[in-house]
Every structure is written in structure tokens, then in C-alpha cells.
């Protein structure tokens, strides 16, 4: 390893990745046990093992490489149908996951514990997995004592008033779709019933005509036959009128019933997505107990509001931030028992996690009774890191101070601990809550404790949005993400340096045409007034010019077919009340797109006026599904002056090269969604991109693999087995030269 890199930092990243992959392994092994032939699980398992193999090879953990390799081989064999993994095999593989976790969690200086005699359990495990892969029956392996299996004692089924059923989210989505369709259909009935009123009026006119005719006839003398016919006609017209009136009344009643029914069906279908808080908190008490013990602390978790319901998607996505907050409370919040006793508190710390509904929002709080946050220390940390001007730091209020804790990389600790001081601190919580369209707040009292409050929407499936028209089609902007919508006379547009602005509340806000931003053809919005939607934060605030406002609407969010991949600037779709589709814009994406647009336009102007361009650095895109490898390559190239972008798989990479300029792509081969070979072929087939150099870095070091990569059009093939930083750098230099653009 190159000493340029902070070895500790790399180890931290590696540990995080190992944790993620191990969780994937455990989860999918358990799922596989339920359905041993499901290839989808096997695919995930194979990838996870493969990624671990790669990451541990970078970290020089040979034993782990070997074990992960055997597991990967075993999953590949199962994928090919060579073996079926039964319960014994799953047992064994789960223990292997435990072993992988133990190795990954061992601090670097103690890694020697796994060499020599220490490697025996791992080698025995490798032999076992090899045996599984060869389809042999298993001899029970003596499980080392430190890897005792988790006791299922505290997983006793909670007393439920109603039986719970497992339903796939796909079938729930379809149910919701049908319910919303029937709601749309029922809305059609009322206008139809009203159209019968027109018929009624026409018949009334007919009756009147017959009436006047009859009067005219009687004035002109008698004709028996005609009078009789006329009377019959009048009678028939009357019967028609009565029939239509009756039918109309019946239809109206039916429309009412049907719309009630459709509404109820729809509400019930929406409600079936809701789950109690308890469903997502099962693992927490154990986590708190185990962690507290490992820290030499005593702690108890109290969970309140277990029956509080929330969207199942919200519940799933809460697990990670809540785990993080619990770790944080245990590590930073709670004091050691002796310290607590000295402060007159019970030696056992208490963490209260509560979920409740308030004003249509979901509030989840995590409160500890520990030492609280030392605001002076936060101030000092801000000063030390020079995150704000010194005179400003003194003026910051307590709330403003605490906001700094959510900044990436902000840690109060000088020492990184294994439990929660991960360098990535509360920013993870902040980002996850933000992604759920929620907010997070901290409150603290010295000596009494710290509380985190998450405010979240009850459901992700219903969104309040502003409907607008862009290029003749409806689009929706989440109300929570926009600042205001206003109409401004054209005369108020100012132009500064060729860019259009408006002044709003004393701030100059750049104007962007929505059609242009989304790459949609269409005439520029006409008329004397512009319809503008304002969003973003100070400094990155923009006004999006749309063609018109339709108004506010509650939308039921539908995911977009995953085959379309992520559509830039779009988060999801929905149906309008009339059943027509609407796309939901993603404001964060929009801001990024605008910045790209603005900086691009700016560059063009500079160029045309002949001004000196700032020196551009060469841009490299690193595509790898392993966080460790990605970060290693990013840092290596970054340290040598290159500007580095990353993509988490081939598809991500493919999107990146099509939307941003790059001078080189460095890609792995085995990746989900789109593999490296496919990525290379796509790039080389694209007329605009085919000249872009691509380097493949892979573990596959056989000549055939190399040839396959080069056949696809790769310009360079580097094997990870012999991965040296110099080799990578030399190759990059060969392909695109040094970082400074000439």
C-alpha cells in the first residue's frame, strides 16, 4: 500500500463495505433457504462474495480473499444448477459470513491473529464450502466459541390483534393502480349523468313543440285522426320524459355509491402499505445491549409508539439512520457507569426511541439521558476546522452550532472508534432523512442528555405537488421542495452578463426555461407574464420558467419501469385525476442540471470573448461496484491531479459518460446492471464517445478474459491481481498524459 493514503481511512472504508456485503450475504442466504432455487438471490450472493474478494485483496487480507473465493465458487455452482443449497449448507455459509465479519472487524495491527494457527478455523471453513460446492454431505463442524449463533429467544411473536400476511410490494402496487383506475372511472359517471339532463331538456322541448302543435290544430278545427295521433305522441313524449328522469335519478345514486366505493377501496389500498413501527425495531434492543457491553457501558432501550403506523418504504429506509443514532447515543451520549453514578444518575443509561404522528407527519425521536453535547467543544471543533469565520463562530446560536454536526466528516472525536466515530458522522443520518423528504433536529441539555428528532412524511406514496405545464405536458414539483410559485411581468426581467435574472425579496434569482433544461422541444413560454417556480437555497436559488400553473394536487406516486433506468431530473410518475400520466420532477437533480447548464454557458461566453480559460484538469471516470476499490482509485488519481468522477456500476457509468465530459474511463468487469464489457461496447459503439479511451481493471487474468475485454474495444487491460498504483498511473499516463490539459 502506498503511504500517501491514510491506511486507517482505507481500513474504515473497507470495514463499511464488508459490513454492507455481509448484511447482503446474510439476508440473501436466509431468503435462499426459503426458496433454494431462486437464482436472483444466488446472483446477489455471488456478487457480494465477489466484491468482498476484491476489496479484501486490495487490503492484503489473503485469508479473507480465499474464503470469499470459495463462497463465490459455491454460489456459481449453485447458479449453474450443479448443487442445491439446503439448510445445512446455509448454516455453514452463514457461519462463514460471521468469520468474514470477524476478520474484517479485526483491527489491522491484530490481523496477525489470523495467521499461523489462527487461520485453522478459516481453512476448515474453506474446506467445508468446497465440499458443499462439490455436492458432498456435510460433517458438522465444530463452531469456534466466539461465533455462537444468535439465540432466537427474544424473537417470540408479538401478540398481534390481526393476522399479518406477506404480500409483495409489486402486488400492492398493482392493487393501488387498479384502485386508482376505478377512482378515475367512477369520476366519469357524474358528467355522464349530467349529460342525461340535456336529454331531459330536449325531451321537454319536444313536449312543448307537440303542445303548440296541438293548440294550433285545435284552433284550425277538428280532425279526429290527427288529434288522436297527436294525443298519442304527447303521451309517448311524457312517458319518455318520466323514464329519463327516473334513469337519471338512478344513475346519480349509482354514481354516488360507486364513487364512495372507489374512494374507500383506494384509501384501503393506500392504508395496506402502512406497517406498525414495531416491525422495524425488532433488532434494536439486542443491538443496544450488545453494543453497550462492548463499550463497557450499561444501557437499556425503551421503544414507545410501537403501533404507530408508517409507510413500509419509510420504515425500511429508517433502519439505517436509526441504527446510526443508537450507536451514536451509546458511544458519545451515554457515560461510563462510574461516571454516571458520580453524577448522581442510575449506572444504567436509558435510550428512548419513540414514534408518533403529529399534524400529518411522522415524528421519530431518539433521546438518551447521557452527558449531552458540549457546545463549547463544538465551537472549538468548528474553529479548529475553520468551517466558519472566527467572529461568526462566537455569534452562532446553540441550534446553529448543532447544525454543524450534520456536516460530512464533522466529528467531535480526534480518535475514530469502531462503534460510531466513522469519520462519516451524522451527515449519513441527515442525507437519509433528507432522501425521505424529512428533516432532522438535535436538542441537548448538558448533563441531562441529547435528543434527535426526525420529522418524516407518513407515506412516500402520496405527494402534495404543484402541477405545471412544460412543453405542452403536465409535470409535478413536490411542494415540500419548492419555495414559491409566482407570475412576473416580462418587463421585470433583468439581464446581467447575458443571463436573465429577476429580483425577488431583494435577491437576484437566475431564470431558466424548464423546456430547455429538460431537453424538450417547444416554443418559449409566451405571454406578457412568466410563470415561475422558485427553489433551491441561498446561492443556488433558481427560477424555473414553466408554461403555466395548473394548481396543487395530491398525487399517488408510482415508480417508473426500472428498465428505463434513472431518468435525469425525474424522480417518479403519477396519474392525474383524469387518468393522464404526469412526471414528478426531482428538485435536487434540477439544481445540478442548472448548474451544469449555467457553467457550460458561462464557459462558452468566456471562450468567445477571447478571455483566458482557467486551466482545465483531465477528467477520469472510475466505475467499480466496490466502494474500497473506487475510493482507492479515486484518491490515487486525485492525488496526481486528475479530476475524478465515480460510478457504482456500468449503467451508472454509461449515464455518466453520456452526460459529462471525460477524458478516460477506468472500469471493473463484474458489476450488476451493466458489466464492464457491455459498458466498453456501448462506449465504443457510440459515435460521439468511441474515441474515449477505456481501461479495464479486473481480477480475471486469463488470456481469454483479456482478449474479451480488448475485443470489446478496451484500450488497456490491467489485472487487479497484480494491482500496483504505479501500474495504474503509468497506464493512465500512457493513455491520456498528465492531469493538466494541454
Amino acid at each position: 500500500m502506498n503511504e500517501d493514503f491514510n491506511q486507517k481511512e482505507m481500513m474504515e472504508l473497507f470495514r463499511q463495505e464488508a459490513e454492507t456485503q455481509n448484511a447482503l450475504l446474510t439476508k440473501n442466504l436466509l431468503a435462499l433457504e426459503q426458496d433454494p432455487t431462486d437464482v436472483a438471490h444466488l446472483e446477489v450472493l455471488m456478487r457480494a462474495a465477489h466484491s468482498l474478494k476484491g476489496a479484501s485483496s486490495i487490503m492484503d487480507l489473503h485469508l479473507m480473499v480465499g474464503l470469499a473465493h470459495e463462497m463465490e465458487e459455491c454460489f456459481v455452482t449453485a447458479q449453474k444448477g450443479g448443487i442445491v443449497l439446503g439448510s445445512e449448507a446455509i448454516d455453514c455459509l452463514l457461519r462463514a459470513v460471521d468469520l468474514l465479519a470477524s476478520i474484517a472487524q479485526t483491527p489491522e495491527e491484530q490481523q496477525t491473529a489470523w495467521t499461523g494457527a489462527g487461520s485453522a478455523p478459516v481453512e476448515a471453513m474453506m474446506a467445508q464450502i468446497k465440499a458443499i460446492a462439490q455436492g458432498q454431505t456435510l460433517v458438522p463442524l465444530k463452531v469456534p466459541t466466539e461465533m455462537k449463533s444468535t439465540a432466537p429467544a427474544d424473537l417470540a411473536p408479538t401478540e398481534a390483534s390481526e393476522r399479518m400476511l406477506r404480500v409483495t410490494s409489486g402486488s400492492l402496487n398493482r392493487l393501488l393502480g387498479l384502485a386508482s383506475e376505478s377512482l378515475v372511472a367512477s369520476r366519469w359517471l357524474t358528467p355522464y349523468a349530467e349529460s342525461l339532463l340535456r336529454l331531459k331538456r330536449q325531451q321537454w322541448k319536444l313536449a312543448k313543440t307537440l303542445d303548440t302543435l296541438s293548440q294550433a290544430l285545435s284552433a284550425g278545427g277538428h280532425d279526429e285522426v290527427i288529434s288522436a295521433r297527436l294525443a298519442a305522441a304527447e303521451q309517448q313524449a311524457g312517458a319518455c320524459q318520466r323514464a329519463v328522469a327516473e334513469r337519471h335519478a338512478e344513475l346519480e345514486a349509482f354514481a354516488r355509491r360507486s364513487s364512495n366505493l372507489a374512494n374507500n377501496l383506494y384509501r384501503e389500498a393506500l392504508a395496506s402499505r402502512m406497517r406498525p413501527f414495531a416491525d422495524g425495531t425488532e433488532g434494536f434492543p439486542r443491538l443496544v445491549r450488545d453494543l453497550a457491553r462492548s463499550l463497557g457501558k450499561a444501557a437499556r432501550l425503551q421503544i414507545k409508539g410501537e403501533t404507530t403506523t408508517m409507510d413500509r418504504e419509510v420504515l425500511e429506509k429508517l433502519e439505517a439512520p436509526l441504527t446510526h443514532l443508537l450507536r451514536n447515543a451509546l458511544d458519545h451520549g451515554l457515560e461510563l457507569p462510574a461516571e454516571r453514578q458520580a453524577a448522581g444518575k442510575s449506572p444504567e443509561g436509558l435510550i428512548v426511541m419513540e414514534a408518533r404522528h403529529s399534524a400529518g407527519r411522522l415524528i421519530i425521536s431518539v433521546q438518551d439521558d447521557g452527558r449531552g453535547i458540549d457546545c463549547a467543544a463544538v465551537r472549538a471543533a468548528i474553529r479548529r476546522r475553520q468551517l466558519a469565520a472566527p467572529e461568526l463562530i462566537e455569534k452562532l446560536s446553540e441550534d446553529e452550532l448543532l447544525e454543524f454536526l450534520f456536516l460530512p466528516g464533522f466529528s467531535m472525536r480526534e480518535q475514530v472508534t469502531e462503534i460510531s466515530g466513522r469519520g462519516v458522522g451524522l451527515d449519513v443520518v441527515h442525507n437519509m432523512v433528507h432522501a425521505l423528504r424529512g428533516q432532522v433536529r438535535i436538542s441537548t441539555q448538558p448533563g441531562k442528555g441529547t435528543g434527535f428528532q426526525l420529522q418524516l412524511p407518513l407515506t412516500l406514496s402520496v405527494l402534495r405537488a404543484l402541477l405545471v405545464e412544460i412543453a405542452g405536458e403536465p409535470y409535478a414539483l413536490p411542494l415540500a421542495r419548492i419555495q414559491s410559485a409566482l407570475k412576473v411581468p416580462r418587463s421585470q426581467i433583468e439581464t446581467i452578463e447575458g443571463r436573465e435574472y429577476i429580483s425577488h425579496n431583494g435577491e437576484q434569482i437566475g431564470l431558466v426555461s424548464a423546456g430547455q433544461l429538460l431537453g424538450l422541444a417547444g416554443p418559449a413560454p409566451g405571454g406578457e407574464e412568466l410563470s415561475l417556480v422558485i427553489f433551491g437555497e441561498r446561492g443556488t436559488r433558481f427560477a424555473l420558467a414553466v408554461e403555466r400553473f395548473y394548481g396543487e394536487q395530491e398525487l399517488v406516486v408510482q415508480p417508473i419501469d426500472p428498465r428505463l433506468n434513472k431518468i435525469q431530473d425525474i424522480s417518479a410518475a403519477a396519474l392525474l385525476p383524469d387518468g393522464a400520466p404526469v412526471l414528478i420532477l426531482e428538485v435536487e437533480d434540477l439544481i445540478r442540471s442548472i448548474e451544469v447548464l449555467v457553467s457550460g454557458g458561462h464557459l462558452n461566453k468566456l471562450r468567445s470573448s477571447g478571455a483566458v480559460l482557467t486551466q482545465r484538469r483531465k477528467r477520469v471516470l472510475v466505475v467499480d461496484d466496490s466502494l474500497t476499490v473506487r475510493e482507492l482509485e479515486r484518491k490515487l488519481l486525485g492525488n496526481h491531479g486528475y479530476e475524478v468522477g465515480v460510478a457504482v456500476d456500468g449503467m451508472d457509468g454509461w449515464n455518466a459518460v453520456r452526460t459529462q465530459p471525460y477524458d478516460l474511463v477506468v472500469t471493473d468487469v463484474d458489476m450488476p446492471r451493466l458489466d464492464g464489457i457491455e459498458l466498453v461496447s456501448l462506449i465504443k459503439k457510440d459515435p460521439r464517445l468511441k474515441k474515449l479511451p477505456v481501461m479495464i481493471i479486473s481480477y480475471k487474468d486469463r488470456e481469454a478474459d483479456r482478449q474479451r475485454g480488448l475485443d470489446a474495444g478496451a484500450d488497456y487491460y490491467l489485472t487487479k491481481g497484480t494491482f500496483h498504483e504505479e501500474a495504474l498511473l503509468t497506464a493512465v499516463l500512457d493513455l491520456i498524459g498528465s492531469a493538466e490539459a494541454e
Partner: protein
Amino acid sequence: MLLDREPPPGYLADSTARVAETRQQKLPGGQGLVIFRVAAEWLALPTAVFQEVVEMRPIHSLPHRQNRVVKGLVAIRGQLQICVSFAELLGLDTLAVSKDNLARRTVPRLLVTAHQSGNAVFPVDEVQVGYRYHPTELKPLPATVSLTAARFSRGLLAWRDCNVGVLDEELLFYTLNHHLA
């Protein structure tokens, strides 16, 4: 009176021959097809991939897409599905037809199809009711058929006075899914 009339000469023999012929043609192993028209071409797909045929409705286009194969999203039974242009996917000439459409007063429809790789909705200019055929009825494609369209067809089927290109659904969806990504 009308029904008592003598059949015209040769009618009986003619009908008998026709009935007998149809019987012979319907061999076991026949396949159901839905026949439809896109631009000037008559095409067919197996009934098995069809979910339903629905009336035209708004199709929402997608931003940032240069790819014209995907027309956008369309709501089918309350769920948004991908709407795909046959003409773009198969490389058909769409210009020649607009006059024909006006003259014939046909009704454009949406074909909702389902395949294990995912659903897709295709707008077409006209749909005919189902038709059963036997694979042996398929004629090979003449060399004159444009290369792009031919790639997707199993063969031609004589139907009324036109030739219908019977599409290979596996190839169609395979190509479609590659276009989507």
C-alpha cells in the same frame, strides 16, 4: 319468399368446396394471432403476448431522451407502462400512410403486451380481430422486404388481400429491452 329461392347455379358445389378446404387447413398446433397495421405494414403477434387492446389515451413523453423508440409513459389500468413505437423499433416508413388513414377512417389503438421481460404498450393504426394460423401457412419473406423489418419476422401470412408479417415476439422484446437501457 326470399329464403325459398333456389340457390344460384354452382353455389352449393362452391360452398362445399370452401368448407371442405377450410377444414383441411386447420391442422392441430395452430396459433392465435392478433393482426394490426402500423403505417403501411400489416403485422401480427401471437395472442399469448396480448393483455388487451385499449383506446388511444395521452402518452407522456420523457425528458432527456434522444431515443425515439420510447414514446413515453401511458396509463393502463391505473399503472404507468412504457409506450413503444413499432415504427421506430422496426424501422418502418411512416410518411407514406397518413393519406391512407384519412381515407379509411380507421381507429388507432394501443396494444398492451406482456412478456416475461416486462410489459410494453404499442400504439398501432388499426387492429383486426384474432386469427388462427398454422406455422405451415407461413411463407418465407421475399427479398424485397426491407431488411430492418424482416429481421423481426418469422415469415409472411396471406390474409385477405395483403401479406402480414408475423413478428417473432422473443426477438422483438429482446431488441426492445436493449433499446430501453
